[in-house]
């Protein structure tokens, strides 16, 4: 039993820190720390910086240009980049499609698509969810019918994050209606410039249009864009989902959020004293900090087990649920701390590059909208209800 890093891990941590000090542009970390919305160029800039250093693809094998890091190194990298205010890595190409192609793609697909992901030639988005399906991913209704050298795709995907920036989408499509719902699904790569693809933004309750609907109307996709075998897509889809759960606990985000909350509660005044000195508020803040201290260790335990080669089971569901509860509580406390200035809603303030004079304190708008936006944390990536089902199944087996 030892809670501290090894000398090698500490050295790696130093390496990451000095890299971030040298290479992370201040205009990016300012936006991230200020809760501003990031644009396409921001993400691309940061991807390119990481790629230059060979650190863009933390989950890829070295033969494909990945880092070859173990779980502890990936954790250290995540903690440090989050603490420094680096933009997140857009996961669709790097954390989702990349691993699927490496495991299930053919040689041409690997040779062609993987370097393009690293170099930022393509912006990928995800065509999994469909309207009305919710967590029931196997109920895919979008169809792909073989027609010569092409599939003809018809249907609709939804909750496509950052789809407005994408030129490529990987999709689950139904190629057969026989057998169980899981059995007739295929995994298809679609060029979004193909005629018949249409992207429509969905505005969320924080006013942001980060997610989209994607419509397919007789879209012709070359058969070489099929990954793996026809009707075996469900296997690849599930493999992808396990990679989606990297950093599922969100410890770094929670710590950053907590630091921001502490700062705000030190600035806000209530009854003539800083809010942070109010016993009720201090109590709520301490409570979530204590929960986070324990959860961070649970996270390390799972990471250590993963680094030792054990596949995480229900533990990652536990981390998802508890991590979500903690982050949403921090969001709620931040909103509470902001006080009356939580009310103004000037969406432009959140736009990257906006110089709008904020209505209230600079933290008010971002803090309030983060509360609304992060309601999604317990809904997407397998809702917390689905996670609880997985946990109870693992222990009760019923």
């Amino acid at each position, binding site marked *: 039993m030892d809670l501290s890093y090894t000398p090698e891990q500490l050295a790696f941590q130093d390496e990451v820190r000095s890299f971030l000090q040298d290479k992370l542009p201040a205009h990016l970390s300012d936006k991230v720390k200020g809760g501003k919305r990031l644009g396409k160029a921001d993400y691309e800039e940061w991807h390119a910086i990481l790629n230059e250093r060979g650190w863009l693809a933390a989950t890829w094998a070295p033969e494909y240009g990945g880092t070859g890091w173990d779980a502890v190194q990936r954790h250290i990298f995540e903690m440090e980049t989050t603490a420094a205010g680096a933009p997140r890595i857009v996961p669709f190409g790097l954390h989702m499609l990349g691993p699927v192609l490496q495991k299930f793609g053919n040689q041409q697909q690997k040779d062609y698509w993987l370097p393009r992901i690293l170099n930022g030639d393509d912006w990928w988005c995800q065509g999994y969810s469909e309207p009305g399906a*919710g967590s*029931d991913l196997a109920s895919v209704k979008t169809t792909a019918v073989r027609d010569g050298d092409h599939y003809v795709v018809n249907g609709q995907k939804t909750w496509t994050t950052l789809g407005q920036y994408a030129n490529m989408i990987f999709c689950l499509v139904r190629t057969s209606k026989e057998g169980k719902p899981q059995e007739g699904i295929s995994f298809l790569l679609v060029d979004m410039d193909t005629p018949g693809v249409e992207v429509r933004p969905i505005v969320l309750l924080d006013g942001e249009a980060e997610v989209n609907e994607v419509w397919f109307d007789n879209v012709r996709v070359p058969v070489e864009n099929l990954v793996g075998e026809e009707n075996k897509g469900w296997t690849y889809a599930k493999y992808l989902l396990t990679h989606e759960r990297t950093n599922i606990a969100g410890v770094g985000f929670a710590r950053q959020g907590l630091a921001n909350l502490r700062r705000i509660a030190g600035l806000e005044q209530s009854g003539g004293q800083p809010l942070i000195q109010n016993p009720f508020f201090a109590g709520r803040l301490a409570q979530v900090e204590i929960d986070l201290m324990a959860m961070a260790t649970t996270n390390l335990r799972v990471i250590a087990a993963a680094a030792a080669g054990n596949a995480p089971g229900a533990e990652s569901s536990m981390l998802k649920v508890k991590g979500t509860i903690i982050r949403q509580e921090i969001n709620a406390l931040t909103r*509470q701390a902001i006080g009356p200035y939580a009310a103004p809603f000037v969406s432009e303030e959140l736009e990257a590059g906006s110089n709008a004079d904020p209505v209230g304190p600079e933290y008010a708008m971002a803090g309030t909208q983060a509360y609304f936006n992060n309601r999604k944390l317990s809904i997407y990536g397998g809702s917390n209800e689905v996670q609880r089902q997985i946990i109870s199944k693992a222990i009760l087996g019923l």
Partner: protein
Amino acid sequence: MNFELTEERQMLQDGLRRYLSESVTHEGLAAATESEAGHDVGLWAGLAEMGVIGALFSEEDGGFGGAGFDLSLVFEETGRAGLVEPLLDVGVLSGGLIAALGNDTQRGLVDEIIGGAVQVAFAHGEPNSRYDLSRVEATAKAQGDGYVLNGRKAVVVGAPSAQMLIVSARTSGNAMDQDGISLFLVPVGQDGVEMRSYPLNGGGRAAEVTLTDVTVGGDALLGAEGQAFAALEDANARATCAIAAEALGLMETIKTLTTDYLSQRKQFGQPIGKFQVLQHRMADVLIEIEQARSAVINLAGNLDGDRVERERHVSATKNLIGRVARQVVEESIQMHGGIGMTQEYALSHFAKRLTMVDHRFGDTDFHLERFIRLSAA
């Protein structure tokens, strides 16, 4: 002991519910919020015509209601509809203060408010005041027969559509003192009054108001100089009753949206309302909404009680409403899943508006602390 509405109130409730369900639309609310004034002139006229504004005032003030149960009735309905008009601000706060403190001339404004002709916004909160009712740093210095006002007023709801403001300013004492606060009637066009209008989460608009050497006459003073605090506290109690009732109405609509969704939406081959986990969580939500209803009744029924008892109920009710509101918002969005987060779907408006209830007149913790203090007194 009787929990039935009188016949007159029942008629008002029925009429108001019908009118709002016909007149208020998701698009209309968004349009009002987008507009510079932040309100819908037609709706306001309609409310005035129906006597809804008048229902907030006693007969001696020219209205036909004014009791706690009148406030709770009206605002539960506006909440149900998700209305964003500044009825609370103009009717309960400004109108109530003028009725309570105004001289005969000033009280003429009450008739204009009831008739819908004039909107008066209440410019009291300041950038640093948070929920402290007596924290007033704006100043009013006597000059000749009148006063010169300076200061900043924060999140003045309804100001963008108002013709007149009630401005609180300190004529004596220090920032947190209860003594020394005075109220002034100031036309929005007055020299030195600057306004920055913006939309609000949950709809409607407010403004930041800056007062720079604003000169008003002695006749602008509302009530006795430096003695406004008791009336402020009274108006605050009534406003808390109103916003608590509005919150209840918002909860009722969210309840309907959510139970409908649970019954209709299918997943894994059955309505999601068949999942026992959602059933039980919905049952807990329903129980808490009943608690919220009782809390509103308690406050409405004690608005005219003695001060400590009234204020204990103010804090008890606002605390309970704040807790239930968070539960209702978070559970309803969670049970809806992704669709619950989209601006296009009605839930988002109600959920945001209900969330914002905790950001006016003191939040859950503020009132818990206050309740303890009042109970120990």
